[in-house]
């Protein structure tokens, strides 16, 4: 939804026009500033599109389809004849609305009997059976962390760290909560390290609101989309893995920096949170993966398997 640079594609312009015109017709007029803000378009582009649309009509051009003029920053429409009702929802729009609604109903703190549920029922009546289930199963701490984000309060948590193998207590100021690839995360300021970091919520074993307000911040931190949150962690070590077909699930399950696949094997560049994380992943993958780079980790899997055998599976 950014304002693009360069020529705007025709379909984008047309799609936007067909949502703006009915809105305008219903109100009879609006300021350019209001429309630009509402429909995420620059005033310059808005004027171009409205003026071009206003030229449409049948020869000999007395019979205009759209009676519209722009004067002094204000758009005014005359008696509306066309484009008074919005265009029906397209399949992607219908899907996006239903999916968003179902997802929101599955989010922590959702009101399952409220206006959203009613809106979904009405959508379903127009779009056909929805038959869509979003299983966003949440670790138990998720709802309380989401509340802390909204109320800007701090939480005392016990967090299990895979690299140390120990749980530790810390005070965090949760700023955003999000689900990605089936896991829930909280982005929070961590008082122990005085840094912002992303915690896996399923590793929070205990949590309690402190009752304290988090340090006041003016900016709202938005939950990251796509792989953005992982890409930002660019100080993480990157490992190059050769994956057999049976190990390809790694690139579907975890964010990867890049992937190349030949007939059978996949080469994946994967940012890793810690050596422990990589070790556990390699033990799961067994013969289906091999570390290519860095050389220091080429024998990590074999070393770790020997250690685990010695520690837990040696004959008494």
């Amino acid at each position, binding site marked *: 939804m950014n304002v693009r640079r360069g020529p705007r594609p025709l379909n984008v312009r047309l799609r936007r026009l067909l949502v703006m015109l009915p809105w305008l017709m219903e109100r009879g007029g609006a300021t350019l500033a209001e429309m630009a803000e509402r429909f995420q378009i620059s005033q310059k582009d808005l004027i171009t599109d409205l003026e071009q649309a206003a030229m449409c009509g049948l020869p000999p051009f007395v019979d205009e389809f759209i009676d519209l003029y722009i004067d002094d920053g204000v758009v005014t429409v005359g008696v509306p004849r066309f484009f008074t009702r919005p265009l029906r929802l397209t399949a992607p*729009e219908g899907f996006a609305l239903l999916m968003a609604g179902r997802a929101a109903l599955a989010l922590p703190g959702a009101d399952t009997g409220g206006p*959203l549920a009613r809106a979904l029922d009405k959508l379903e009546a127009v779009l056909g059976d929805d038959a869509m289930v979003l*299983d966003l199963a949440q670790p*138990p701490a998720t709802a309380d962390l989401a509340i802390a984000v909204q109320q800007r309060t701090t939480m005392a948590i016990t967090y299990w760290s895979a690299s140390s193998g120990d749980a530790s207590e810390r005070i965090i100021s949760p700023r955003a909560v999000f689900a990605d690839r089936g896991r829930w995360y909280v982005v929070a300021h961590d008082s122990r390290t005085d840094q912002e970091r992303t915690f896996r919520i399923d590793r929070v074993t205990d949590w309690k609101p402190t009752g304290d307000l988090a340090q006041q911040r003016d900016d709202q931190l938005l939950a990251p989309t796509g792989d953005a949150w992982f890409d930002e962690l660019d100080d993480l070590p990157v490992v190059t893995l050769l994956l057999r077909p049976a190990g390809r699930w790694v690139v579907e399950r975890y964010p990867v920096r890049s992937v190349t696949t030949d007939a059978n094997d996949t080469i994946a560049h994967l940012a890793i949170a810690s050596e422990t994380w990589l070790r556990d992943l390699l033990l799961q993958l067994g013969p289906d993966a091999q570390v290519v780079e860095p050389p220091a980790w080429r024998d990590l899997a074999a070393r770790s398997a020997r250690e685990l055998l010695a520690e837990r599976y040696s004959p008494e």
Partner: protein
Amino acid sequence: MAPPTDSRDAAGTASVASPIERITSLLALLLERRTALTLRQISHELRDMYPTGAVALRGAFERDKALLRDVGVPIETEVLGGDQAGETAYRIDRARYELSGLQLDDDERRALQVAVAATRSDAGQEGVWKLGGSVVQASSVMANVPQLPALPTLRQAIGAHQTVTFMYHDAARRLDPYGLLLRRGFWYVIGHDHGHDQRRTYRVDRIDDEVQIDTAATFLPPSGFSLADAFPADPKLLGDDDGRLAQVAVYGDLAALVRRELGPGAVDMSVPASADRTVFAVPFTNVNAFRSWLLGLGTHAEVIGPPDLRASIVRWLQGVAAGPTAAKP
């Protein structure tokens, strides 16, 4: 407004109407006329907007038509009879064009807009605009839900109870789709597979190329079908192996996490617990998924029984310990 003559050149031969002007005119014309119009009639009505040469005219019209369809305008075609026999005519059914029958109250519209913020999709924003909503504000609590091109088509077919066809693992599939399920971050479509004549589940992100709807083939979804129960959420239970219980000892602080994951009922009371060690009874029907889960716990867990399961884990680890070359068959 500017005089429309500005948009035409002196000779009036070549089209210089802006594409937006021409397309909105075409759209308004087709919306206004109750009968279907041939390209000849359209170019006559919108003279000076379209090029005059037959080939250029057809090319420009086809581009406009494709663009209108791309944004969702339902343009229907019919082949005429009588003295225009064989000619194709075009029309837009206003009832199908307009969004109708969806009277949302203000609080419902707002709730939907907030919901779109929690998944953030461009198509969602377009939909919110059509419903009269405004800009979707970003949210601090959200779910990254994979957006795949096949999903809207599948949902449309599910909503209309129509059969779909697609390629999956290099084989053509024909499916009566019952529903879409997002689980553990992946989208699945569940339905009746014609080729196998049984219920099947497909990962939507693994569907090759496009999903086609066979609008002529409809089906009745089974009653009492529960999407959420279509397959177990726990991958350890996602297999054809006989249901078994593994005894797993978990050491240190990790035990608290595993207890949360499996539930307090999974603690194996027959084994004396110690401060540092808790034993769990872990059900599984898929030994590979079980092994993956166990090894994901790293050095803090150990399978202690049954003996054959422990032996299989030991063999796996010995294979890994021997290094990559030895692990190859």
